[in-house]
């Protein structure tokens, strides 16, 4: 029997109900997906069964994980943050400006850190050889960008809005439109890879990857907001998305938490 959307919907609902019961019984809010999340079939053989071993960083301030690799101007080229200018012609699609701030759990700006993004083109096709979706490639769009955060933790990209695309988790599976983000903080423990979504996408409820974040408020934090103030007249529509890195850094020790 091929796996249908209805099967996946039922599994997603069961996972949400199980999470609601855990919280009602006093378990903490889960900000991140569980690695063992059956509706996303690829997780089945790729999640550890043993619980992680916890390292209390306050007991050893010298841990290399409390520091982070450095990135600088020579790691970027001039138009890396403008994905519409990586080829001779203009890419097809709705031009967008995506901007926000990179913050830590204390709400402080994370400065001078590397932000990398990748995405499908406006038709929902990645410029990747393994991509089998038969939507057209755009010779003027690769879909890879990089930048460093500014003194206030801000980042900004110019790109085109990616299209949704089908995948083979189950029959009729479609990913909502999204941009992949990779982020570094002042500590390697704060490393984050995630995806940014666009507001009001009708595919949200059907997508086991987004729904793997079972906490409603946490899931909402993956969705950018339309920001008319960021829109560039006669050029692009603006989306604002702030990113908060989890995990301890060296200042947790100084402040004694």
């Amino acid at each position: 029997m091929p796996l249908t959307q209805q099967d996946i919907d039922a599994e997603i609902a069961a996972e949400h109900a199980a999470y609601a019961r855990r919280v009602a019984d006093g378990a903490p809010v889960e900000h991140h997906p569980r690695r063992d999340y059956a509706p996303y079939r690829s997780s089945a053989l790729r999640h550890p069964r043993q619980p992680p071993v916890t390292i209390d960083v306050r007991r050893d301030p010298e841990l290399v994980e409390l520091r982070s690799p450095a990135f600088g101007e020579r790691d970027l080229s001039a138009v890396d943050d403008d994905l519409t200018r990586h080829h001779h012609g203009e890419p097809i699609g709705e031009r967008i400006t995506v901007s926000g701030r990179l913050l830590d759990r204390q709400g402080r700006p994370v400065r001078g850190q590397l932000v990398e993004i990748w995405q499908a083109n406006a038709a929902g096709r990645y410029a990747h050889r393994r991509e089998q979706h038969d939507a057209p490639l755009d010779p003027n769009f690769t879909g890879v960008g990089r930048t460093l955060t500014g003194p206030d933790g801000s980042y900004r990209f110019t790109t085109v809005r990616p299209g949704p695309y089908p995948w083979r988790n189950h029959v009729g599976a479609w990913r909502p439109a999204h941009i992949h983000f990779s982020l570094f903080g002042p500590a390697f423990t704060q490393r984050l890879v995630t995806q940014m979504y666009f507001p009001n996408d009708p595919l949200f409820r059907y997508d086991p990857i987004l729904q793997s974040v079972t906490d409603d408020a946490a899931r909402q934090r993956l969705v950018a907001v339309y920001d008319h103030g960021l829109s560039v007249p006669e050029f692009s529509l603006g989306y604002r998305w702030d990113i908060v890195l989890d995990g301890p850094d060296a200042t947790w020790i100084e402040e004694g938490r």
Partner: protein
Amino acid sequence: MTTTDPGGPGTALPTPSHTVGPFYGYALPFPGGGDIAPLGHPDTLTLRGYVYDGAGDPLPDAFLELWGPDPAGNVPDVDGSLRRDQATGGHLGRNGVEFTGWGRVQTDADGHWYARTLRPGARGRSAPYVSVCVFARGLLTHLFTRIYLPDDEAALAADPLLSRLPDARRDTLVAARERDGVYRFDIRLQGEGETVFLEFA
């Protein structure tokens, strides 16, 4: 999109993690990603291994990031891992002189990865190790582990992490010496011989 935690002033709620998916390959890896050691450095070592899933099959679509101190135990503060050519926008590769301490390596179609880096020095109370972060399609949140080197038994015995693990689990964190300067470190995501993964709090 709210980032303010009503439960505590001045605190922000974290952005959830997501899988890297299958298509990071044309975005995140870069030429020379695993050539972390400066050219000709006498303390260069080669690390290599496989990443396996719960069925024992190697993963062709995973990548690792390695992060470690220099042989004196100092943490590098040097950029330039991803140097770019300002004329073409392409990758220049590392300059072969400076040590950034950080690298990114993909598994190949056989699930094999390798990197050349400098032998890490000890820091604090820990035995020498290289920090590892594992990403893969199917992995909703990355995984941290460590590669300890097998050469100094006394240091390993005194290590605060290793010393609180049962022997079988501890051994998943210690690389096997294959020959001078070459070490094997396999990562098993699930099941028998499952690698010890870490969380930091």
